[in-house]
């Protein structure tokens, strides 16, 4: 009986008992498990969004917008610099992704270049001092004709994109946190994408609305002298712009406001929904700098109108009745309680550097999730019973041993998924059911081999020994091939399909353990007691 080494018996016992303890939390409600003493494992299997309900959104940061805006800013900077140095130029503007202009006097090219070089920022270096190039490249196009072009350097562009995506990630996180949902996942994906997963949210349109706005808030003085009619006909006073109004109380469809923003949302420290004269409003507070600027602005312009602009729309244009020195104010506009609340959230969380596009959306309601869990459980139980009964009928006593292995396998899978904190999805449940069918394969291989060995005239014990060792090689070969397919599935699959790959892979590995150790142990223990002259196989 050399095959019955005590350490193997102990290994099986320890692993199985450990697995039962690790799988136990899944049988109880979450609240019950929370109350357990600390030394017990409390990890429950993570349910995927398709099982617990929730929303999955894949967003793309429109980085082109960021790049374009930066180039537009650069145009103003270049204009200022050239004027300051009295360098004549013409045709300054953004064309084909570069800021271009032509010098009136090509001889001034070196002077112009010096100015441009000065405003070409150095990029930050990483911890090894690598990087640190310039943000832009400056080219002199057309020999000696003074045609200059400024564009992003490769690193400059990458750095911009990186910063914009990081900032977007941060803003998205703050906005989602404001919803107060449990355990949202917000991750960067690839270069310019953000994955948002929010469990349990019944209506994803709520989240989409929250993420669908850049929420850039700016304060502008209204040009009191300009006539709206002129402006709409395209005759705007220099340095002003026409912005449509969303507040019907304004009595006008649009406002002519100064291009320059006096203050912006970045100066806010807080925003809350509240009520004024029974109307929903948003109250806000400036930081120190903002408060000082707001105070001097309201002192200088008492009696005039200023416009509060959100994403290129005037949401309110109140008159400054008296200087506001306390650094806080109220935005009243065409709000409902809900939209006031939403604006407050957006202002608190800050503006997105660029709009977000929804590339993919998958939301599952909690009731469908619950239905799927119930269906998965029913299918698993029926699957186990069918396979178990079939094995017992076919292999008799040995079939019962295979059934013990089958149940151990199931416990091991649940334990492994709980410990790994892997996510169980609906295809994942299918993976478990499939494993139930396929895991008995190892036992079938072993038993069939033992039958053959008996037919070849071996004694029961020899037949068992040879059966196991001969079948083992085949079992490993056969399972490695399945594992290869499963690994690829994990690598290329997404979401729920990944969950299928995980359970199938775990199931294959645990079935190797149960088939080789658990089955073998049971067979040998039984044999030692019964000592049959013929195996009942």
């Amino acid at each position, binding site marked *: 009986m050399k095959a019955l080494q005590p350490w193997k018996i102990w290994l099986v016992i320890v692993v199985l008992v450990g697995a039962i303890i690790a799988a136990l939390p899944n049988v109880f409600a979450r609240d019950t498990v929370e109350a357990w003493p600390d030394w017990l494992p409390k990890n429950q299997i993570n349910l995927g969004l*398709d099982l617990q309900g929730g929303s999955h959104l894949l967003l793309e940061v429109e980085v082109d917008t960021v790049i374009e805006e930066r180039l537009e800013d650069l145009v103003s900077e270049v204009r200022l610099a050239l004027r300051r140095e009295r360098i004549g130029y013409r045709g300054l503007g953004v064309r084909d992704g570069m800021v271009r202009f032509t010098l009136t006097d090509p001889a001034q090219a070196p002077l112009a270049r010096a100015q441009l070089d000065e405003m070409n920022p150095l990029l930050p270096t990483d911890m090894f001092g690598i990087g640190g190039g310039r943000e832009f490249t400056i080219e002199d196009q057309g020999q000696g004709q003074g045609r200059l072009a400024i564009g992003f350097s490769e690193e400059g562009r990458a750095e911009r994109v990186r910063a914009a995506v990081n900032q977007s990630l941060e803003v998205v996180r703050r906005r989602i946190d404001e919803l107060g949902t449990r355990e949202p996942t917000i991750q960067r994906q690839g270069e310019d994408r953000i994955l948002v997963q929010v469990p349990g949210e019944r209506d994803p349109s709520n989240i989409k609305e929250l993420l669908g706005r850049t929420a850039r808030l700016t304060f502008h003085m209204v040009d009191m002298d300009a006539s709206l009619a002129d402006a709409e006909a395209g005759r705007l006073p220099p340095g002003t712009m026409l912005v449509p109004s969303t507040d019907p109380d304004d009595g006008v469809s649009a406002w002519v406001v100064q291009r320059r923003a006096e203050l912006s949302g970045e100066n806010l420290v807080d925003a809350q929904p509240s009520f004024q004269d029974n109307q929903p409003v948003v109250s806000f507070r400036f930081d120190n700098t903002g408060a000082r600027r707001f105070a001097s602005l309201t002192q200088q312009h008492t009696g005039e109108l200023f416009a509060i602009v959100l994403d290129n729309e005037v949401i309110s244009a109140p008159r400054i009745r008296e200087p506001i020195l306390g650094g806080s104010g109220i935005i009243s506009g065409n709000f409902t309680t809900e939209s006031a609340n939403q604006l407050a959230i957006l202002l608190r969380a800050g503006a997105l550097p660029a709009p977000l596009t929804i*590339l993919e959306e998958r939301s599952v309601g909690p009731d469908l999730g619950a239905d799927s869990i119930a269906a998965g459980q029913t*299918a698993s139980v029926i699957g186990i019973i069918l396979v178990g009964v079939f094995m017992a009928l076919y292999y008799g006593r040995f079939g019962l041993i295979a059934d013990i292995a089958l149940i151990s396998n199931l416990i091991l899978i649940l334990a492994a998924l709980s410990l790994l904190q892997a996510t169980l999805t609906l295809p994942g449940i*299918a993976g478990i059911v499939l494993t*139930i*069918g396929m895991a008995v394969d190892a036992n079938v291989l072993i038993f069939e081999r033992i039958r053959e060995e008996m037919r070849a005239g071996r004694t029961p014990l020899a037949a068992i020994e*040879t059966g196991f060792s001969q079948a083992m090689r085949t079992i490993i070969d056969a399972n490695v091939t*399945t594992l290869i397919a499963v690994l690829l599935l994990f690598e290329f699959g997404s979401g729920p399909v990944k969950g299928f790959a995980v359970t199938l892979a775990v199931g294959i590995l645990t079935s190797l353990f149960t088939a080789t150790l658990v089955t073998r142990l049971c067979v040998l223990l039984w044999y030692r007691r019964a000592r049959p002259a013929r195996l009942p196989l």
Partner: protein
Amino acid sequence: MQFRLVPDETKIRFMRMRFIAMAVSGLLMLGSLVALFYPGLNFGIDFQGGILMEVRTPGAADLGTMRGELNQLGLGEIGIQEFGQETDVLIRIARQEGDEEAQQQAVIAVQNALADLYGDEISYRRTEFVGPKVSEELLQAGVMAISLALVSVLVYIWFRFEWQYGVGAIVALVHDVLLTIGLFAVTGLEVNLTTVAAVLTIVGYSLNDTVVIFDRVRENLRRYRTMPIPDLLDTSVNETLARTLMTSLTTLLALFALYFFGGEVIKGFTLALIWGVIIGTYSTVYIATPILLQLDLRAIGAKAEAKGGADKGPAIEGPGPARRGKAEG
């Protein structure tokens, strides 16, 4: 109370059937290829982009009214079908012209139209939207995964056995993959992300089956040195027949439980797997093994033997069961 699926010792002449089997398989593969173009695959939103909604209405859903209402929105092709039970409806909206924003507008338009019909009493069980960018990437990833799977198992078989076995295995796998895709084309079953999972699982399963028989062929080559190859292949298949059928049966039992009780969402996935298990088992016996006939197995066996053999591991390790001396602990 025990029973046998097959008698203990069968002597079925599988190899004799090989020409019939190959003709049948050839025809089926040809048919699958044709079906791939006509009627073609019914790609779901994962690979084509578009919108899918599963809604539950308060009573039995009136599909006609819903169809009429939604078709007025001018969103192009809208598919409406009952899903599992009469209160549940699956709505498919084809990918909209334009960018991602246009798709979102369509979702909102449909939700508004349904709200007009049912008010608050309609519940959205599932809303899925896949934009053109992502659907293209998913399709690429799916094709990539299946191709890589075929290549890597070929390499594995090559490494573990000899190249002849690799050829047999890969032809059988291509056969299985093609027939599975054919099933999708002929039945119009939706091709989505889980289809890729199903195909890869079938690849794994079918190979598993093939490896078991090849293992036995390799063993028998050493055991019966003078037996003609066709007889030897027949013997190998016969010896493993009980196991082949038994494993297919238990897997099918589990899959049928899943098909009938696992819910509407994964029915297509399960159906593909059931089909895959059946053709995977068939192809192992009638495609993978007969191909070994065309390749000179005995030569490689002899070559490995001549090398005196520590290199290929199991290919030359240990005698067959009848002559085996030591038992491993």
